[in-house]
């Protein structure tokens, strides 16, 4: 659980062809609002997070509030896992 951000970062670089020359993928790099991930591709990320951390998303949780950057993703995953 300590490597959530690193795991997600690796996944995004691999799946969404994020490149360092765009700028470093930091904790606060916007993902959904910048278009790196769009609402369709977000489902891939959802599936990855659900499988990796064994929790379920609600439909309305597929949202910028929870997925727009690595820090938000980590906080969301933590909250979901701890609520289990």
């Amino acid at each position, binding site marked *: 659980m300590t490597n959530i951000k690193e795991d997600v970062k690796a996944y995004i670089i*691999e*799946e969404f*062809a994020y490149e360092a020359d765009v700028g470093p993928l930091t904790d606060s790099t916007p993902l959904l609002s910048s278009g790196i991930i769009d609402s*369709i591709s977000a489902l891939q990320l959802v599936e990855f997070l659900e499988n990796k951390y064994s929790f379920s998303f609600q*439909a309305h949780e*597929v*949202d*910028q509030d929870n997925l727009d950057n690595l820090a938000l993703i980590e906080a969301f995953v933590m909250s979901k896992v701890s609520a289990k």
Partner: protein
Amino acid sequence: MLESSSGIRNAQAIWAEQKARLPVFVGVLLCLSAIYFFQLEEDLQLFRLFLIFVAGFFVSGLLDGETRLKFIWALNAGAMFALFGVTAGLGILVIGLLFFLIVNLPIGVWWRALLALLSGGVLAMGKLGYLPFAEAGIVSTVIGGLFMFRSILYLYEVHHGWQNASVWLKLNYFFLLPNLIFVIFPVVDLKTFARTYQPEVSPETLEKGLLWMMRGMFHLLLYRIAYYYLMPDPAATSSVFQVIQYMAVSYALIVRLSGIFHLSTGMLCLFGFNLPPTFDNYFLATGFSDLWRRINVYWKDFMMKVFYFPIYFRFTKRNSVAVFISVMLVFLINWGLHQYQWFWIKGTFPVTIIDAIFWLGFGLLVAANSIYQIKTKKKRKKVKEFSLRAASVTCLQVIGMFTFMSVLWSFWTSPSIATWLELIELALPISAVQLALIAGGLVALYCIGIAGSYVSYYLDKTNKNPDQSLKVKAYALFWVVAVVLMVNPVSKWVETSLAIDLGPVREARLNAADAARQFQGYYETLLTGKDLATVGVAKNEDENSREWKPLGSFGIIKQNENEFSRSLLPDVEIIFKDARLTTNSFGFRDREYNFERPPNTMRIALLGGSSEMGAGVSDEETFENIVEDTLNQTGGLANSEKVEILNFALSGMKMPNQVMKAAEAITYNPQVLLYAIHTEETGRGLKEFIKIFTSEDASLFPEINEISRLAGLQPEMSALKKQSLLRPYARELVTWTARRIVKLAREANVKPVMMFTPVLELKNAKKLVEDEEIKNIFRKAGFLVVDVQTAYDGYDATNLRVAKGDNHPNAQAHRLMADELLRQFRNNTELIRLLEAVE
């Protein structure tokens, strides 16, 4: 502290920020000039709205974030009155606030939704004209535009716990200034709207807003040019290339939507709402899912959030089946929501098979594409080095997608499946040469694509991609040049020295196809219910802000002894195109006359179409009445003391109808038959000529049947195909018409005169040649040709039409026509000789 307690910043802060805003403000003024000079979206009052916006933008820079929100909302409320008047403005404001209160009531979300639905139902009654308020239509349209989708999103978010905004931000979310005139508006996401609001508007956001506004206006101009110059008339289409052009331009016309969305979101950015892009290079989509991602991004996000995710997450097994069902349901909803939107705009809820095929077909393709991507676990790849193979694949995908969407779009925008199939039929058969040329064209496109890919790669690699500032400067330069070109002395000089008409660029005009339809009596065909299949007419009607009722809908046109002989009913009075139209006891739009010609009277029978009938002008304003009055007040004509001009003109009359009408007119014992002909009369008449081929009254026209057989017409062919085959025989058809009328006239000792009348549309060199040819044919057949085409010379055509989008001559144009005809009566020696020779 930058802000004072009143919300107005201190002078130093204002000066610092205004200095930074100055270039943007200059850019906004440039946009205002461009909207003015190009009359962009004039029918929707864009210029007036933009004036309000400019003032608002200036003032908003003086205010702090929260005060600005209050100000923008107040500006919006004021704009309602400025745009729609006191009554409608008040209605929109009050009902809008009522809806806002409903979605914010301290009750459960479902109860709010129910109340909103019921209130929407009452509003819909207004849209349908069931409420006793004259302004109910416009009020319901605007309220529909403001609330139809954002209220759904709002309630969805509130249902899931969102409440993180001030009441002023919430008010601004619903009352978006450009949405007042653009009913089709991007579905702005609530959370994004609230999250991206900048109390201190950053220079980047201001620059982005300006860029989007300029780009949006550029798209609107592109739309105008593509619609006017590039959209071929399906009725005049005769080759596969024109069919391809028609399909590609049909799809390309979506650029108008992109223009409206860019302009609208750009304006919102300047108020501090740092919204994301609405479109993303949709013509470069490489697949169906990619297109769904790129085209109307806000709509896609709205559909995903409110419908797709909730449906998809209901599946316990999120596999291909779940994706397929979810996508198909979303596209079904998509279809319904488009009809719902249509209702708030037009007041109808059309359910058509074409829409069903389009939406469900599109859904099927997106679903298949999505499943394919899941199955193949296809990842996005970004290539470090340029690869011809990768560029080729992308290029072919883009060409394929654009081609497919063009075909699909042309289908969706066709009035019926039959019409679309007729269009396809025109392209067939495709010869080997045509096929080779098409292949050559595709190869050329491919090469352009590869070159484009390399340029893009090179710019990426060398970090030379134009940044936002450079793009703004490029658009600004374009608009400065464009505006200067439109300023009166410059535009006059350009038009004179280059012999071009900038009119269709300067203002929205009907293209040749739609303009022709206006005179074709399309509406009048409602009389018989036949031949309604005309591509694009529905779109044209939609854009006609005046919404005049067609003559045929008044029920005052009757069919006579055969299908090609029509008349107006006697003794009727209607208001047609806002003008009084009455008929006499014989059933023509004219004064009362005796059937027998009075002694010492010159009787002239006028044959013509809607312009001569006087569509859009009152009874006494028609040129023939003015000429008749003037001649009678000045001693008559030739050897006669009195003159009678009997007006047999009727909307929608084509050459075969005029032959019938000539026979009818001659029974009134005129000495002169005056046949008014317009440019492109032949093309307009083709639809009527092809009817003869399959008509029960075909025996009346043996020569036309012979020409049709020579042209290769077959009864089972579509109307468009028949027109295409008959078009090369236009000369023969005109000759037949002229000779037939001359024969009728000579048998009755009537002098045939052909009057070549002016039109308000632009004429190209080809048309001018055709005009000369028609005149020669009539001359050879025995007509005296009187050319009155110079009647409108020196006048701005836009001041001579009955309305924007309706090129029938107005009262002033009729007066000019009358003046010119009177000049001809007085100075044309051939005409004087002819008149003096009448018995």
